């Protein structure tokens, strides 16, 4: 095993840079790790499976009558489900933050950071798998929705566009929570901060109720709340209506959040001692 016998893989460039194909292979291997972890610990899927069911039932039957009028719960389902699509991404993203905080304390991260792989691939792999989890949650949400009266008045393509849009925004949120998870000392602290930020964003939005009955200052806030933008976009894609503004706003938010937080998260991961 002398150094002379080490045959380096062809993928390795002389300057040690990681090529695109190698990078994708590394992300694949690391995503596989994250998936095997879920397989080993199926309980970690509970949130993705149960949350959408609980939320849709709770909101439809507890608040639906008050918001849409008694007996009009079914109409509320069509208002609520697109909103919950936006919320699902946020909740999954929050779990990413706490998971990352735990995971990155483990010795295996030291191994990854001493290996000839791009350090970003560890984070990207995590996001790939979490987007998959989000897709599971969204599918269950829609299935529940259809079971209690959700209708799509546009087309399947529009519905899929709504799903894709919420995935895109959810993935960008994950960078924020990864950054938070890498910055804070404990998973509990991450959860604490996340709740404080999330509650006003979730409820100060058009997710659960139309904003027209809110006081003016709050209505103003909801207009710039990306969760409102996403909820409105998904709502109009499913129920029909003008989509351009809300879709573009959501995409703009997604890009802006990713561009700012992804490099910060990677830098944080690189420097973490």
């Amino acid at each position: 095993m002398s150094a002379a016998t080490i045959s380096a893989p062809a993928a390795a460039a002389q300057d040690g840079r990681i090529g695109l194909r190698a990078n994708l292979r590394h992300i694949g291997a690391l995503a596989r790790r994250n998936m095997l972890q879920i397989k080993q610990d199926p309980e970690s899927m509970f949130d993705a499976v149960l949350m959408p069911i609980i939320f849709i039932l709770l909101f439809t039957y507890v608040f639906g009558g008050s918001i849409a009028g008694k007996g009009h719960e079914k109409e509320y389902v069509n208002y609520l489900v697109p909103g919950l699509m936006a919320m699902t991404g946020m909740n999954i993203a929050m779990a990413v933050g706490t998971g990352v905080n735990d995971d990155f304390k483990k010795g295996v991260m030291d191994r990854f950071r001493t290996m000839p792989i791009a350090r970003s691939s560890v984070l990207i792999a995590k996001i790939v798998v979490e987007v998959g989890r989000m897709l599971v949650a969204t599918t269950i949400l829609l299935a529940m929705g259809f079971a209690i009266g959700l209708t799509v008045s546009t087309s399947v393509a529009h519905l899929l566009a709504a799903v894709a849009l919420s995935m895109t925004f959810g993935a960008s949120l994950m960078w924020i929570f990864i950054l938070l998870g890498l910055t804070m000392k404990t998973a509990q602290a991450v959860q604490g901060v996340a709740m404080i930020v999330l509650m006003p964003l979730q409820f100060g939005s058009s997710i659960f109720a139309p904003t027209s009955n809110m006081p003016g200052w709050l209505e103003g806030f909801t207009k710039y709340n990306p969760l409102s933008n996403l909820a409105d976009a998904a709502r109009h894609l499913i129920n029909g209506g003008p989509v351009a503004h809300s879709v573009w706003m959501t995409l703009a938010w997604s890009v802006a959040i990713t561009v700012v937080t992804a490099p910060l998260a990677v830098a944080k991961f690189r420097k973490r001692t």
Partner: protein
Amino acid sequence: MTRTDIHDRDGNAVHVRGLVKHFGATKALDGVDLDVREGTVLGVLGPNGAGKTTLVRCLSTLIRPDAGSARVAGYDVLRQPRQLRRAIGLTGQYASVDEKLSGTENLYMIGRLLDLSRKDARRRAEEMLERFSLTEAAKRPAMTYSGGMRRRLDLAASMIGQPAVLYLDEPTTGLDPRTRNEVWAEVQRMVSEGATVLLTTQYMEEAEQLADELTVIDRGRVIAGGGVDELKAKVGGRTLQIRPADRAELSRMAEEVSRAGLAGVAGATADEAEGVVNVPIVSDEQLTAVIGMLGGRGFAIAGISTHLPSLDEVFLAVTGQKTSTPAAAEQHTDELEEVAV
């Protein structure tokens, strides 16, 4: 990227000069110089908090030193970290494998991350599992492994890429003696196959077993270095043990040696339990003089032997302190992390 020369002109696979790393006010490394010749094992010996782990983390690109230079396997640690990572393997104090994954899955993942094809990664994982006697446990999650099995899996993971230079950071800390022997045997095998190893340890026995040369560090500084025997000799002489034929003469023999006034021979002590007289000496002339004197005075001697001091004694002599306990170690590590954050 087949490298035929991983060493510098002097034959060193690891070459460190003036390495400095501060965490706030704590000088974890305060100007460390060391060399590891290709194909040898350097034991870095030091108490907890001496800077051993910081040294390994600097040399494996996990943290950036504040000053100094280091070349490993022909690559500059600061300027060529990407190339360097292809040439090194690291096994830390805490097993760096994924606990939820099985032995096979862990090694397969490492193989894929090292750009092996799926088939080669599978094959290599199996090879390594067999070599490290983990084939039976291959399908179980690593969290069900014993401490020794985990450490072996960790070593296997480090060996997948056949690194030219291997860092072993306290590889047997927390292991029972039997498991420790297993790990030692593996390390010796790696070295016999040509690996260059930088081993940190606080166990003197471990350094003596595995290392060709030693560097003793304390408070971030190198305080002694050299071959194992060389270092012992540096600390000062040997102990001459004389076994009288008649055990009853033990204390009288010790007194005679002490009072004889031989040059450089200070006090002799009688060890009743062992039935020997211990005489500290620094030269062969003194040995001859002591034995000659005793023979001249009619003592019957059943046996003599000389002993180099143990590494514990070496350590005490060069650092002025006894090796610290593991509990103190963890505390210190915590402190460092606190400061580092």
